[in-house]
């Protein structure tokens, strides 16, 4: 009961409600604009959160996350381009249905299933995050090391990249985290006499570079691309028949999305693809998929929004990000002096339940905004790239500079922008770099402390049941995508 009251806190504070409204609207705009998204948007807005108290800051980031994930569906349905990678599966049926003159129905189904998926995942978050946090009390350094390794091996199966390339990108992310003074011995690593590098490479310059600047370069190669826009009169709520057809799919995908979200490093993109394929597998009319099936839209959208709450579970309970956007949220927590983990649940329940409540409200808000305002949000895509991207560049540069007031950070951002462009061009996903970067210190720190505990005997890892379980799970996580890719001949 107390927790329920704590969850309602954002509703009774005008400041928090305002932050929620702004975050939801901003998230929708980011989700609608192809190439941007909650990860880039979260990274860009992170410096602005410094003026807010920790709860408001994290509420802002989480509402952007929830609304941004849904916003991608609007673009997917109307212009056949996913606003966010998580909406890629929505294009498969959303756009064909819109082409049949039923854009309103397609968006209505996307809005309802996203909201149900999102709310379902918040319930999962409320129940499972404290359980996982309690479990984390059993964790010592070796267990955290094994968990971080599990998170990293999960990178093999994220996105549409090849497993090996994802692992290379993940290892590269960890390598970036080693730049600067070694946090245990204060010995310089990879600094090459540049003083500014002694403090290491910041998370924000890398994220903004890999997401925003590399996307700017990608857009520079797509200037002749013409979008075929489908007209939208109004968003229509699903009919009784649609509900009958899709309620099982929505619930199944909500479960799938929440589960995938909880797995470290996985996120909405994987969830929506699995949600979509499972919807097709269980459907009585699988032949309609790809031609405008409402079940297809429901399957993908419920799953990707359900992944938002799921991904927050390991982020808050263990400090292991469940997705790229939660890696940004985790950075936000750390910047504001909040240490995620089991102690957070004991010491600051009002903070945590405030976030849970805010996510719940954000899901309801994006339903309202999406239902009544999708037509307006769709118009945002009309802003030409030649005006939009120079503006995004200005915000990226100032935002990156503002965190440490270092011009070197801006150059690092540009470097990672160019690098990210070429990584994506040659099939390397940039998400593993982000996850690797944020987990790097944890991996190295826990490894070194474990070795001290074990007196240099590596085999002692195998005597710890929890660590051993995570190592076995890591092997499965590595083997599964390799076998799947070999089947699909997509190992590289």
């Amino acid at each position: 009961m107390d927790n329920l009251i704590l969850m309602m806190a954002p509703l009774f504070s005008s400041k928090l409600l305002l932050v929620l409204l702004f975050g939801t609207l901003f998230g929708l705009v980011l989700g609608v604009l192809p190439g941007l998204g909650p990860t880039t948007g979260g990274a860009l807005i992170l410096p602005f959160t410094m003026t807010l108290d920790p709860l408001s800051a994290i509420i802002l980031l989480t509402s952007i996350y929830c609304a941004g994930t849904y916003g991608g569906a609007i673009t997917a349905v109307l212009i056949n381009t996913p606003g966010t990678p998580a909406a890629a599966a929505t294009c498969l049926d959303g756009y064909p249905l819109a082409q049949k003159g039923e854009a309103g129905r397609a968006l209505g189904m996307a809005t309802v299933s996203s909201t149900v998926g999102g709310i379902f995942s918040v319930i999962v978050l409320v129940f499972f995050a404290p359980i996982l946090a309690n479990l984390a009390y059993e964790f010592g350094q070796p267990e955290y090391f094994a968990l971080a390794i599990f998170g990293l091996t999960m990178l093999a199966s994220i996105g549409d990249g090849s497993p090996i390339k994802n692992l290379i990108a993940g290892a590269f992310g960890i390598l970036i985290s080693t730049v600067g003074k070694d946090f245990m011995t204060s010995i310089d690593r990879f600094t090459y006499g540049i003083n500014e590098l002694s403090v290491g490479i910041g998370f924000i310059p890398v994220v903004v570079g890999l997401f925003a600047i590399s996307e700017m370069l990608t857009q520079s190669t797509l200037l002749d691309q013409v979008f075929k826009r489908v007209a939208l009169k109004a968003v229509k709520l699903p009919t009784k028949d649609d509900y009958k057809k899709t309620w099982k799919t929505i619930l199944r995908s909500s479960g799938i999305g929440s589960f995938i979200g909880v797995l470290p490093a996985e996120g909405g993109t994987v969830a929506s693809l699995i949600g979509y394929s499972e919807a097709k597998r269980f459907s009585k009319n699988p032949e309609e998929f790809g031609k405008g099936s409402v079940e297809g839209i429901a399957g993908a959208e419920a799953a990707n929004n359900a992944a938002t709450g799921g991904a927050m579970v390991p982020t808050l309970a263990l400090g292991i990000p469940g997705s790229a956007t939660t890696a940004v949220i985790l950075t936000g927590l750390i910047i504001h002096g909040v240490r995620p983990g089991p102690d957070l649940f004991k010491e600051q329940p009002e903070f945590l339940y405030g976030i849970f409540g805010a996510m719940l409200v954000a899901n309801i808000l994006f339903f309202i905004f999406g239902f009544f305002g999708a037509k307006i949000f769709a118009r945002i895509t009309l802003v030409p790239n030649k005006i939009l991207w120079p503006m995004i560049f200005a915000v990226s540069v100032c935002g990156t500079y503002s965190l440490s007031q270092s011009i070197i950070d801006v150059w690092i951002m540009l470097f990672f922008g160019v690098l990210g462009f070429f990584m994506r061009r040659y099939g390397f996903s940039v998400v593993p770099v982000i996850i690797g970067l944020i987990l790097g210190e944890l991996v190295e720190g826990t490894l070194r402390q474990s070795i001290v505990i074990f007196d240099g005997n590596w085999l002692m890892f195998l005597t710890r049941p929890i660590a051993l379980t995570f190592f076995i799970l890591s092997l499965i996580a590595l083997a599964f995508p390799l076998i799947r890719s070999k089947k699909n001949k997509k190992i590289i």
Partner: protein
Amino acid sequence: MNNVRDKKRANKSLPFFFRTEFKVFFTIILVSTILLISTFSFDTVPPILNRGIQPATFPKGLLVLIIVLTSIIYYLSFKRPWKKEKNLPKPFFLTIISFILFIIISKTLDFFLAIAVLSVFVSYYWGERRIFYLLLVSIIFPLVVFIFFEMILGLRFPPGIITNLYYY
């Protein structure tokens, strides 16, 4: 169908050093090797201060892992060559040039002048010709951003010929 496949696989007919997979493999291996060599120059700590492993050991392990994984993808590319990427268009290179201009101007003249120059350069070469929009992206918007960061976040931007007009 075969034509499409042949086009996608056109990369295979090129000499190995022109193929995308070789270029990617070569670049990663070269950079990783240079970094690996540089790890040998890291200071070492005496055993009493050493927490488990030397500071260079972990990065060394990562670099070896990257080299091994890169070699695997290169080996696998013999069986399944990568598709040939389209050539990069002119606006891409102009955007890269604008980044270089940004670095030079922000270092020598002024941070905001650099943003303005990049914005107008990118916007113009991406096809914008209307004066109002060029002014919007190069002057009005950066000014709004400057005021916002300066007033709300209390941020002090690096000195330069334009920012000094405001600060002094």
